[in-house]
């Protein structure tokens, strides 16, 4: 039975403060720090790594408006009008540019409902794709949006795979189906040490351009090689773990390719590290990634205009 959709008047900025970027899968799996070398000490690859086209892929999402409806039984149906963008910055031979920007709009509804909606905003007609969320709560809807964004990021990243390329994706590689592509996941924050205390002690001692040896993480789902590396020297009052990122590649790549990518990342990534004046998440939020996020948010369009357009449409009557 169709029911009328109504607006939740609160600004979507007052979103439930749920952590959707992580935490990483709690069960870390089986760790083997001896896959690359038996001697556990910092590796400083030679600076003359083979040049590669570097692609940075990232995504952003935004709730445009929250909506509510009630079915005949009085049960609440939550919904969000939302936007997600994914894109890529390519840095090739001294030139950085935005190479692909995808923007998607979704009307995500709980309670198994699904409805696409076309809304006229300014001189554009915006198509909100109808998505039925597997969960019914507000948090479920946002998780659903997060998954859609991650999938979109994976689609963008996959279009850049190729010889002589290295794609850096934001976060763990769970959403990627391609197992043998030159793809590196960059995990900005350290939630789990993965290593035992003795091995982890090396992480704090790394210098920019150095990395730990590879260690494998085996969980029988996404088996991967991982390493820690330093992007920038922390200031004196900062913890020695500031400026550290963890990177991972799929184990299916093979150890040799994994080592090559690890070498490449250790040498090249510090060049892209941001500084505190530029980014509050410096140095881990890399400069091209910060710029890409800003560009993506810009491409999502003016939030106020879109919200007004949604309000107008709901006022005219939307049923789900």
């Amino acid at each position, binding site marked *: 039975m169709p029911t009328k959709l109504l607006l939740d008047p609160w600004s979507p900025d007052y979103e439930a403060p749920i952590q959707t970027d992580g935490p990483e899968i709690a069960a870390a799996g089986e760790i083997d720090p001896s896959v690359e070398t038996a001697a556990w000490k910092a590796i400083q690859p030679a600076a003359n790594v083979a040049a590669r086209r570097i692609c940075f892929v990232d995504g952003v999402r935004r709730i445009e408006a929250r909506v509510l409806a009630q079915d005949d039984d009085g049960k609440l149906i939550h919904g969000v009008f939302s936007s997600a963008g994914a894109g890529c910055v390519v*840095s090739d031979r*001294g*030139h*950085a540019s935005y190479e692909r920007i995808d923007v998607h709009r979704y009307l995500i509804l709980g309670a198994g409902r699904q409805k696409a909606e076309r809304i006229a905003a300014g001189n554009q007609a915006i198509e909100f794709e109808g998505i039925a969320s597997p969960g019914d709560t507000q948090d479920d809807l946002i998780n659903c949006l997060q998954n859609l964004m991650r999938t979109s990021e994976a689609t963008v990243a996959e279009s850049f795979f190729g010889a002589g390329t290295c794609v850096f994706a934001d976060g763990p590689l769970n959403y990627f189906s391609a197992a043998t592509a030159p793809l590196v996941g960059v995990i900005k924050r350290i939630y789990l040490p993965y290593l035992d205390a003795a091995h982890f002690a090396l992480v704090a001692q790394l210098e920019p351009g150095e990395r730990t040896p590879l260690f494998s993480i085996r969980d029988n789902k996404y088996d991967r090689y991982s390493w820690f590396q330093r992007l920038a020297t922390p200031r004196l009052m900062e913890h020695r773990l500031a400026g550290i990122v963890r990177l991972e590649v799929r184990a299916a790549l093979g150890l040799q390719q994994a080592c090559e990518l690890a070498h490449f990342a250790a040498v090249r990534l510090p060049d*892209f590290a941001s500084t505190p*004046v530029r980014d509050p998440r410096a140095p881990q939020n890399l*400069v*091209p990634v910060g*710029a890409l996020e*800003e560009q993506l948010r810009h491409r999502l369009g003016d939030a106020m205009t879109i919200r007004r357009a949604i309000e107008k449409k709901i006022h005219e009557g939307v049923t789900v």
Partner: protein
Amino acid sequence: MNEIGKVLGTADAQPLDYWFAVPGDKLVQLDDVVAVQRCLPEGGGKVAIYGVVDTVIARHEGAKLESDVFLAHEGVLPLNHAIKAHVMVTRVEPEIFVPPLPGDAVCKAEGAQREQALFFDSMKKRFVLGLSRDREVVYGNFEFLDGSRGAHINISGVSGVATKTTYASFLLYGIFNSTGLLGAEKANTHALIFNVKGEDLLFLDKPNTIVKPEVADLYAKLGLPVQPFESVGLYAPVRREQDKMIPDTGTRSEGVLAYCWTIEDFCKERYLRFLFADADDETSHLSAVIDRVENHLTREDVSKCEDFDDLKDLIESQLPQWAGNAAAGTQMSFLRRLEASAARVGHLIRGKVEDPARHRIDWKKKQVTVVDIHSLHDRAKRFVIGVMLKRMFEDKEKSGTAQPLIFVVLDELNKYAPREGWSPIKDVILDMAERGRSLGVILIGAQQTASQIERRVVANSSFRVVGRLDTAEAQQGEYGFLPASTRLRSSILKPGTMIVSQPEIPIPLLVQFPFPAWATRPSEAAVKVTAGSGITDPFARFK
């Protein structure tokens, strides 16, 4: 339609000025003439908004820190070049003042559109001002020059690089050589040019031998022939302390007539006052004495005076009677000044002159008359200019009609019509500025600094031209007609480039004029330079 950008939406577009964004593959520069079509709602038709680009800005879009440019250069930070241009609207057709809409296409105005944008289409009579940067002709409305709606041209610019005199002669050349502009009056239209510096104007009738062949294209574009001035009369002051009437010139004597006045003319025509032409000299007492002496001289028999010294002695002896009740101090002051003048100007006023008509400057004999005064003392310069202008003015007053026109070219106006003080020449020039329009006397005046000129002289000029200006001078109120960006540019203008403001066009236009087709120095005229003449080449620094 040649689209060069779109009206942008990040800055307010207004009916009289707007910004547009320029795509990376288009070139937009200052002075480009552009057009936008604005569609009105509900079948209201279209409004054409014309304008001229007065600012172009390029920046990194998305850059927040100054050091971002380095990151972009290293391929770390993706940044886009963004170019935007600002347009000052010159014309809206039909006159419905609406802003262009963001997204509206901005096109380069060419052909008929350009004529509309710059009002050339509505000029019934037009004369060439020069070429724009993109080699299109820029016209001036002749109705604002010939007296029907306005008159006079005023040119300001630093000495040496502003090429004021050359531009003035170019304008005259354009007026005399544009087909159909002067019509039946062409033969009777005259120009009187005072050559105040160097001898650069003494070669107007000689072809320029170093003119490059490609300049011919520019003249062709302007619709002008490449040739010297056709009908030129050259006059130079008579050489001092010589009975023979030889012109006092250094680089050219062939074809140059020596000028002087007879004592008889001097007395009859009341030229005495022009000997007292120093701006700071004037006191009412003194002018009363001069008036009286002039009165007496018109009646006096001066045939006995062989030279100016004799006349001076005559005046001196008679002064006590002629001066009436003027105080002794005033009389002394009069004599002191007369004495000083005699030394400077005396040789130009002669008692016995064979064929005096030959040595009188007759500006009607040729189309262009050049009067050389550069070698004279300041006092003598003032005398010659004062006498010439007065005579010419009286002549025009007598004829009673404005047509045919006479153009008077006078450089160093700051000397002759200074802002402070009074002098008889200033009086004549002011008269010319204020009444010349109805009498058909058109002043093409030039000076280094308009701020030092009598305000009314500049205010009465329909056309204001600026060459290279001193940066401090450019800030003076006299240049209020220049927008800020144009003011800045005026300090870097190259020789051969001028900024012209005219009444109908709301913003001044930048024009370039071609290298003169007439010689501006002896070497260009291939005239043999008299050895040891000591004349320095006034155009050497333009090379």
